[in-house]
Each structure stands twice: as C-alpha cells, then as structure tokens.
C-alpha cells in the first residue's frame, strides 16, 4: 500500500519515506538480534504503564480543577451569585450580576463582529483567492500567525488603537468587544475554511454548470452545506472569548462595577473572568470562595457550549 504523496516533490518525499523506513527497520533488526524477548516484554509493560500514567495525570488535572473549584465554591452557591453585585462590606452576599451582564454584552458584540467578518474572509480565501499570488499566500500565513499571538498583545493593540489612538473610543464595553473579536477572528477564519473546504467540488461544479454565478453557487450551495462546521467553529471561538481575561484588563474592564453596563456608556464595565480574577487576588478567604463559585459558573457555561458544539459536529457531519 503506497501512501499518496501530495505536493510538488514526490521524489523527495519518496526518498524521505524510504530513508525513514530503512532507518527504522535497521534499528528494529539490530535490537531484535541483540535482546532477549522476555526483557522486551517487561520493558514494553513498563513503557505502557508510563504512557497510562501520563494520560491519567492529564485527566486527573482536569478533574482536580473542577472538583477543587466546586468544593471551595460550594458555600457561595445560591441565587445571590446571579442577582447581587459585588460588595466589599459583606462578601457573603456578593455576586456577579454586573459581570454576567458585562460578559453577555461583550459576547453579543463579538458575535455581531466576528461572524460576518470571519466567514467572509474564509469564503474569500477558499473560493476566490488564487494561491499562486503572493498576497493571498501572505494573508494565509498572516492568519495562521495571528492565531498564535498571545492574548495580552491583543490587549495592547486594543489599548493603543481602539481605546486610545486612532479610534479613541475610551474605556467602553464596545472597545472590549472589538478587542475580543480581533482575538478570536483567526480561530473563526480557520474553522470556517475547514468547513468550506469539506464541501466537495462536484457540488460547486454542478451548480456552475446549471448557470449559477459564482456568488449564487457560494450562497445557495456552499455556505448552507458548510453551516454546521462554521457554527461549531464560532461556538468554540466564543467559548474562548468568554474565558479571556488578560486583554480585558488592558482595555478597561474595571473590577468593582455595581451596575448593569451599556455598550457605549463610559462609566465602566466588567466581565465574569475579570471579576473572578479580582476576587481571587484578594487575600480574604470569603472572596476566594466567591472566585471559586464564579469559576464553576463559568465552567458550566463553557462545558455546555463545548458539548453542544461537539454534538452539532457529530449530528450534522455530512458524508458526501
């Protein structure tokens, strides 16, 4: 069974493959000639045990994060958490109301910005861009790079370009939304591209052959078929935006806001992770309990969204 070789250099990849194969075969043969089978079985057992240990530690870490937050935050669970604002005087009755509303507004703004921009960019890159042109390759490489830029750098961008500088919006919620949207835009573009690429070319060719224009083909055939993948990507991007804290610290998400925020009001806003961070950084234990309860609240929302995304992907995954 010969693996298919793509790309423009089959000879190189072929020789690379045979080099690897011979190297592997030589190592294995040498090892085989010089060792006792009993020792091999023993070593294999140890190796598998080590691998299982690694997986177990990773899974255990996940469980520990959730259980620890649940145990620590348990005393604070209750309706106060959702209906009350923060209060330094009586932390027992403090809650996350302004933060929850702030996150809700922020995310609404992110969705409004990121869905049209991300999907449009993905459609351009997949359907229109001629990959032999350097500027299209540059856009592609650029999107990949942006996906790896640390989130705090986006905070700096938001501070210098959106809050101050050219846009000069001030420390308002809309500026936070825009910063988060720029942060998750590459994720949405990459996911939407994957989804669009998965639509087979025969669908497009059939539509074009029937006389549809390129845009009609995209709008009536390609995009509807790609919707489940796009939605999954958007949900995953949104769940990342919900948990992002660092960039919001830079674009003015304040800590103690006791009233409901508005998009363009300049009297401060906050978000769920920022408030959790603020509570956690206080030395009093009551606030740490609140922070843990906030973490559980956030994790429940995120897990629900991620499970929905996975379900959606499995439910609507099309086999062409």
């Amino acid at each position, binding site marked *: 069974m010969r693996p298919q070789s793509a790309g423009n250099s089959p000879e190189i990849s072929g020789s690379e493959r045979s080099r690897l194969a011979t190297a592997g075969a030589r190592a294995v043969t040498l090892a085989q000639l010089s060792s006792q089978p009993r020792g091999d079985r023993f070593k294999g057992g140890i190796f598998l045990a080590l691998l299982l240990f690694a997986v177990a530690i990773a899974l255990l870490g996940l469980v520990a994060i959730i259980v620890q937050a649940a145990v620590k935050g348990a005393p604070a669970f209750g309706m106060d958490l959702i209906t009350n604002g923060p209060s330094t005087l009586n932390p027992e009755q403090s809650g996350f109301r302004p933060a929850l509303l702030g996150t809700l507004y922020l995310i609404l703004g992110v969705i409004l910005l990121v869905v049209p921009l*991300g999907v449009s960019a993905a459609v351009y890159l997949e359907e229109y861009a001629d990959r032999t042109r350097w500027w299209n390759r540059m856009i592609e490489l650029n999107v990949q790079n942006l996906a790896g*830029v640390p989130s705090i750098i986006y905070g700096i961008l938001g501070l210098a370009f959106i809050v101050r500088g050219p846009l000069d919006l001030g420390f308002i919620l809309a500026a936070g939304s825009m910063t988060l949207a720029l942060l998750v835009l590459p994720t949405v573009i990459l996911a939407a591209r994957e989804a669009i690429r998965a639509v087979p070319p025969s669908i497009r060719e059939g539509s074009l052959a029937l006389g549809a224009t390129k845009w009609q083909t995209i709008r009536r055939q390609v995009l509807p078929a790609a919707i489940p993948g796009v939605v999954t990507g958007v949900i995953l991007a949104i769940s990342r935006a919900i948990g992002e804290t660092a960039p919001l610290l830079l674009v003015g998400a304040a800590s103690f806001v006791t009233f409901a925020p508005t998009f363009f009001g300049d009297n401060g806003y906050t978000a769920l992770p920022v408030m959790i961070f603020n509570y956690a950084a206080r030395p009093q234990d009551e606030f740490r309990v609140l922070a843990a309860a906030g973490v559980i609240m956030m994790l429940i929302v995120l897990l629900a969204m991620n499970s929905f995304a996975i379900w959606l992907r499995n439910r609507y995954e099309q086999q062409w």
Partner: protein
Amino acid sequence: MEARDTIGAFGRGGADRPPPSLEASSPRYGEKLIKGFLASCAILSVITTTAIVISLLLPTADFFGEVGFTDFLFGTEWAPTFTPAAFGVLPILVGTISTSLWGMLFAVPMGLGSAIWLSEYASPKARKVVKPVLEVLAGIPTVAIGIFGLVFLSPVIEGVFPFMVNVPPFSAGVAGLAIGLMLVPIIASISDDAMRAVPGGLREAAYGLGSTKMKVATRVVFPAAISGIIASLVLAGSRAVGETMVVLLVAGASPNLTFDPGSSVLTMTAFIAQTATGDISTGSITYDTIFAVGALLFVLTLIMNIFAIRLVRKYREVYE
C-alpha cells in the same frame, strides 16, 4: 435601414470573425462588488497585524529615546516605576523563561506520553472518549487554572516540598506546573495528529521484522513524526511564554533574576497586565515601557510561531 446595417455588420465579419467569447455576457458588477467586500474582510487580518506592529513600534521608539538599547536588553535590574528607575529587562525575561521551562518540564513528558498512547495504544473507543476530554482541558480559561494553582497546588506543594515555595503562596515552579497542565492537551493533540499521519506501511514493515509494539512506537513512528512533534512543542512553548493569568496569580510580582523554582518572579506578561491596569497617562515613560516589553514578547512568540508553522507544513507535505 436598421436591418440592413445589422446584416452588413455580420457580413463584414466574414471568415475572420473572432471566436465567440466564453466570458459572462454581462459585466456582473454585483459579483465583483461581493468579491471586493470578501477580500477586504480577509485583508482585515493583515491590517490587524500591521496595527499590532505599529501600536508596538511607535511607543517603543519613544522608549528607546530615553533608555539605551543595551541598558534595556542586558540590564539586570528591573524597577521602571521607582526613582531612580532601572529598565534592565533580564529579570522579567528570565522570569518568563523560568515559568515556561518548568511548565514544559512537566508538559513535555505528559503530553508526549498521552500522544503516543492515543495514537498507538488506545482502542478506537477509548480514543473517542479521551481525546475530547483532553480538549476540554485545553478549553478551560486560564484564570481558572491560575486559581487552581493559587488555592490548591501552591499549599499542597508547599506542604510536600517546602523548598518549592519560598514566599507563600507565590512560586515560579508552581506557576510553571499550572501552565504545564494547560500545555499537556496542546502537545498531546498536535503530536497525536502527526503520529497518526505516519503511514501504516511503516508500522507493518517494523512488525514484519519482528519488533515489539514499544519499538514500533519509539523507533519508527516517533522519529517519522518528529517535525510535527517538534512543532507541537514549539507552539506549546509560545503559549507558555504568552500566558498571563496563571503567572499573574501564582508567580508573584518580584522581578528576581533567578531560575530557582521556589522563588517568586515577575514575567513580561504579568508586568504588562499589572502596569496597564492602573491609570497611566499616555506618553509617560511607564506607558512606553509596557509597549517595549510587549514588542519583545511579540517578537519572541512570532519567531516561535513561524518556526512551528513551517514544521507543520513540512510533515504535511511528506505524508498526506
């Protein structure tokens, strides 16, 4: 009159009439408009990068107008808000490297172990459960992991290894461990993809020569997937360097020039987040310092990301 002209026109065409055009019969300005709009959305990503570079460069230039380049890069004292101020970036650069190294020290064996298990040992059923669960770990907001480190890991480790936490609850080593927990799924997921892309023929050839499962995994599949594996490690490293919330909560805030895991350190990201949260006036030297440190962070992660993207491309070319 009109009819004769038409006939005349046709007649004049005669034998050397140009072949019928296969272009669209109308100019389709709408289609072009749509393409232009989609392209401008894609170009937004390039604008974002440009904006990041400009917003970092301008204040950084101001910064180097007041502070010498070598004083910044090789100075061993970091006290930008003191009088007299000192702008040697080495302590916070070493702080970043230290927490990242401790994180990688934990994450590399755990992540690679999980990846080898997932791709070579796990049954399809186990894989289908474990991989999404690991991806959930990757989706946990870093502020939650930071709280886990601060409230749980730090006291527990202080109890077992007192030398790991000199200034409770802050410690570079514990911050590294918490970061490592976050890196495991990144390494596991990308390395697993790389190892599964190794063609089955290589494995079968090694088995045919009588090698054990462990030998196939470590001497054939692992070396054949090495570029993808290194890419996953570099990406994880770039994530560790850019991580903010965990170090802000767990690593403390003292700019110590040390690799000691028990010491409290200040990282570049933590400095940015901490300093930018306060109300600072545009144009002051403190404001410019944020951008100078941000520029250094951006350059570091950019180099790592480009390196990783190249490696991923390479292994895709060989086997797909």
